């Protein structure tokens, strides 16, 4: 059950052994090009837009950690993202903690929520898991709606960005930008490392055959919970960062639509790939930004994209590319 990704990803996507030297060089070059792009991007594109993309990309990558590598489709990831945004915003605004601590508090909060929700959710699989995460997240949503510190529909506004490590003034857009870029890179690196680790291997085998993994002595629940909490923590990292960038924490970020959005980003980009969620979030954020000023309801487009993806595009942009003839020829699956 719930092997959503096995059908979508070329099976060698995670296999980073048996790679030729020239390919490694090529990959390094691609990586360096990507880093350079990240470095110069704020001078070419509106930085706030890139920061938004980066926050959502990290969020989607964290979400993908769960679905892509354990096969669990969480429909409640907004709780971690939005919850962390609240925690960061509150601690920075009301307690006056420095931004780095604020983000840490957000991340830890996300992880804690992940632990609680995961405790209930990992007992079931497949759609059951999805329904349960959805419901628990909705419960958290109602909590946020009623709790005093979230300020209801108003949200926590005018969150001060403060000074990173006491001396980097984050109210400068460029300083904020590079901070976000750094957080993004760290987050993605953690995910990459996590997935390509001995732990990741066990996760993969659990997804393949849970009973067998138990009989080999793995306490499946703990591994799943571990992955869940990790994913939640990283979603929290993204949410906390977003709160600083936009100086805001609102109910939107904890609502189920946000959970849906992160699914869309991942699905569109390619579940179970490293690059997919990043690309997917760029597309979705761009679409949202563009439509926001046209008056055309975003949900019509979002809905349509969802349907089209599911019907004809299940591997997502990146996945389809890797599975295409050209992609196979160049072994793209191992790159993305």
């Amino acid at each position: 059950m719930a092997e959503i990704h096995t059908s979508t990803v070329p099976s060698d996507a995670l296999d980073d052994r048996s790679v030729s030297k020239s390919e490694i060089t090529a990959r390094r070059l691609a990586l360096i090009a990507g880093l350079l792009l990240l470095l110069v991007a704020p001078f070419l594109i509106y930085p706030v837009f890139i920061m938004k993309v980066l926050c959502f990309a990290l969020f989607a990558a964290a979400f993908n950690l769960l679905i892509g590598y354990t096969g669990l489709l969480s429909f409640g990831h907004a709780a971690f993202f939005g919850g962390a945004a609240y925690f960061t915003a509150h601690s920075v605004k009301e307690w006056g903690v420095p931004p780095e601590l604020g983000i840490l508090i957000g991340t830890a909060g996300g992880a804690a929520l992940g632990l609680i929700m995961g405790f209930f959710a990992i007992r079931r699989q497949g759609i059951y898991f999805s329904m349960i995460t959805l419901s628990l997240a909705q419960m958290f949503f109602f909590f946020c709606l009623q709790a005093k510190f979230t300020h209801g529909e108003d949200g926590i506004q005018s969150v001060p960005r403060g000074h990173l490590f006491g001396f980097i003034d984050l109210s400068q857009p460029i300083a904020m930008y590079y901070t976000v870029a750094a957080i993004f890179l760290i987050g993605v690196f953690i995910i990459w490392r996590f997935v390509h680790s001995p732990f990741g291997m066990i996760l993969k085998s659990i997804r393949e055959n849970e009973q067998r993994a138990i009989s080999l002595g793995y306490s499946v629940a703990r591994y799943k919970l571990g992955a869940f909490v990790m994913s939640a923590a990283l979603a929290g990292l993204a949410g906390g960062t977003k709160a600083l960038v936009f100086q805001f924490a609102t109910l939107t970020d904890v609502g189920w639509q946000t959970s849906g959005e992160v699914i869309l980003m991942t699905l569109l980009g390619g579940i179970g790939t490293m690059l997919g969620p990043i690309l997917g979030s760029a597309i979705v954020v761009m679409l949202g930004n563009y439509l926001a000023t046209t008056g055309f309801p975003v949900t019509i487009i979002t809905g349509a994209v969802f349907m089209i993806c599911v019907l004809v595009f299940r591997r997502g942009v990146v996945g389809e590319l890797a599975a295409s003839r050209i992609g196979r020829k160049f072994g793209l699956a191992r790159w993305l």
Partner: protein
Amino acid sequence: MTMVFGVPLPALLGQLLIGLINGSFYALLSLGLAIIFGLLRMINFAHGAQYMLGAFTAYLLLHFAGIGYWPALILTPIIVGVFGAVIERLFLQRLYGLDPLYGLLFTFGLALMLEGIFRYYYGASGQPYATPPSLAGGTNLGFMFLPNYRGWVVVASLVVCIGTWLLIEKTKLGAYLRAATENSTLVQAFGVNVPILLTLTYGLGVALAAFAGVLAAPIYQVSPLMGSNIIIVVFAVVVVGGMGSILGAIVTGYVLGITEGLTKVFYPEASNTVIFVIMAIVLLVRPAGLFGRE
């Protein structure tokens, strides 16, 4: 005034009755969801949108064809049910061999789109739909003033729920539905036309949602958001009842509606979350839900 746990008795009874009315909607909606889930193994995320579609169809029938409440109560489920059947034929059938999550995601997209379209044309503020004159007014029950229409909602939903349940459990249809879920090729090999069965089932589930939508129209505004407001609660109801369990969906729908009503009396702050809390507890004790089979 008689007091129960510090609450005046009339207030308590009144809230219980209102809980029962809400429960009627939960039961109808979760019944449709359970039927669809039972056979298609798919969470119909568009269920809320189809409920909304039911209300809007009644509204449009009234405004563009002058068709009133009573004919609409019959016509709407048919129209929306056929719409569901078409969706099933065109799209859902392509998803059957795949992971059930794709069905969830597809219908999620469908829900967003339907909602978006109606928002685009009708805004989100809601359109009024008048209570049928024959059910206008109310009855004084002594402890509360019960609008006749709401009384009718309880009766109608009970009748439809029980009828549907009998149809499925007491006829061979139920066995076909469950068997086809597991191995539709084999059931076909036995001589049952499964594709038609699937289409009809989805249509039936959707029609139930639309029926609930028509029932709801005079109570709430006919609003594009009415579906997404209720659907997640209904999901929780279905989880508590045990997914795919028809009886579970019905019973849990009413019981949780009443529980919610009670919570509003004793601890109103928790009334939004009480169903989710119950869900969490049920999951701990009986992961398959109250009526579910593991």
